[in-house]
């Protein structure tokens, strides 16, 4: 008899837990469905805002978010083989190449990886670089992000604007402490060095692969050389 009631009690408990799970899963699923379009729209706007940080609106008239090429992870972009592919966006004006926008990583920051977004114009000059993710020391190395840079008039990262290998040869594209041309704040050279070197590698990649990158069909994938 007691065994029977124990079995009944556990069945009842299981049923109640199931009902709770169903009700709250339904609640979550309904919210997910109701919010999905709005979330996607804001994610898209967010991404375009990020692109707009490095790519002036006047330079293009296509939809770069739809004109993408996925790049296999490679050392030039600071990525290891197991990383996700990088989505490169292409901006065009009246069909002619205008700029390449892509993410790169500085793997050797003081606090690990520093994620960058770069726009390289069709003239092989950088249009702009921004830090989109980092773990550098707050108040010390985080001036690489213009939002944290105390020098609001001329943020550190802006010295890359409109620079190409014509202005600064690749051999001198590093911080002054390493014999290069770019400034770094005293006491926090590692973050600046990492960003500067990553920018050089990424720019070199964009210059070397420029014609191929613009020519690839939209929404395709660029495999690694020799694969």
């Amino acid at each position, binding site marked *: 008899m007691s065994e029977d009631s124990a079995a009944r009690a556990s069945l*009842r*408990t299981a049923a*109640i*837990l199931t009902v*709770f*799970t169903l009700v*709250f*899963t339904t*609640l*979550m699923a309904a*919210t*997910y469905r*109701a*919010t999905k379009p*709005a*979330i996607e729209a*804001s994610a898209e706007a*967010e991404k375009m805002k990020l692109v707009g940080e490095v790519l002036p609106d006047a330079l293009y008239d296509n939809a770069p978010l739809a004109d993408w090429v996925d790049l296999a992870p490679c050392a030039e972009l600071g990525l290891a083989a197991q990383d996700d592919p990088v989505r490169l966006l292409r901006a065009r004006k009246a069909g002619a190449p205008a700029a390449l926008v892509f993410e790169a990583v500085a793997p050797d920051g003081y606090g690990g990886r520093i994620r960058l977004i770069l726009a390289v114009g069709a003239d092989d000059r950088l249009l702009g670089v921004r830090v989109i993710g980092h773990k550098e*020391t*707050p*108040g*010390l190395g985080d001036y690489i992000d213009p939002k944290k840079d105390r020098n609001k008039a001329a943020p550190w990262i802006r010295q890359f604007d409109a620079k190409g290998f014509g202005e600064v040869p690749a051999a001198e594209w590093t911080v002054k402490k390493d014999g290069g041309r770019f400034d770094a704040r005293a006491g926090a050279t590692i973050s600046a060095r990492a960003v500067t070197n990553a920018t050089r590698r990424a720019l070199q990649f964009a210059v070397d692969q420029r014609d191929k990158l613009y020519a690839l069909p939209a929404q395709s994938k660029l495999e690694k050389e020799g694969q």
Partner: protein
Amino acid sequence: MNFRDIARNGIWKQNTSLVQLLGLCPLLAVSTSFVNGVSLAVATIFVMALSSGTVASVRSFIPHEIRIPVFILIIAALVTVVDLAMNAWLHELYLVLGIFIPLIVVNCIVLARVEAFAAKNTPLAAAWDGAMMGVGMAVAIAVLGGLRELIGTGTLFSGIEMVIPGTRALQVLPADYPGFLVAILPPGAFLVLGFLIAGRNWLDARAEQRARLAAPARTAA
């Protein structure tokens, strides 16, 4: 227990951050600045009031043996709903608070209040208790974040332009203040929290001593 007692309990007597020392992980991680700390606290107040209220309304249907899984289910579902809804309709605010909201699920003060209070009280009292526990945390994290920011960088309210556009951070100490890095780094969080707990205990002890001194005097008179 009336509403005033609940508020006193949440904000001072049973303050989650300074007395119960619960939910220290988000408290210490996020209190690098005043705005960050208060933002997390606002999200926590909201989730605690909501989950305590919900649990209290369905408390008679929850068998004692499986209450913990059900509580966790309810809290996690509500946090997910809040997270999605904020992402969709309050996107600007979500960009600031977004990273903190999933942290609330693992904040044990939510589960602790649901278990200790909401499961035994009416929905209104439970929601009030959740909100007041959150306010207690908000006060602690505001002081903690404000002090760490002030000592660490010499500013107050940095990052407020992301929450209220058009405003800007306050430079409290002179602009050439070199900053005191340890206050921003994790050890600074423990140090400042230690001083806050000590300060709170001192205030309590002083109040108790005064009450003891005052009590016999009153009976004599």
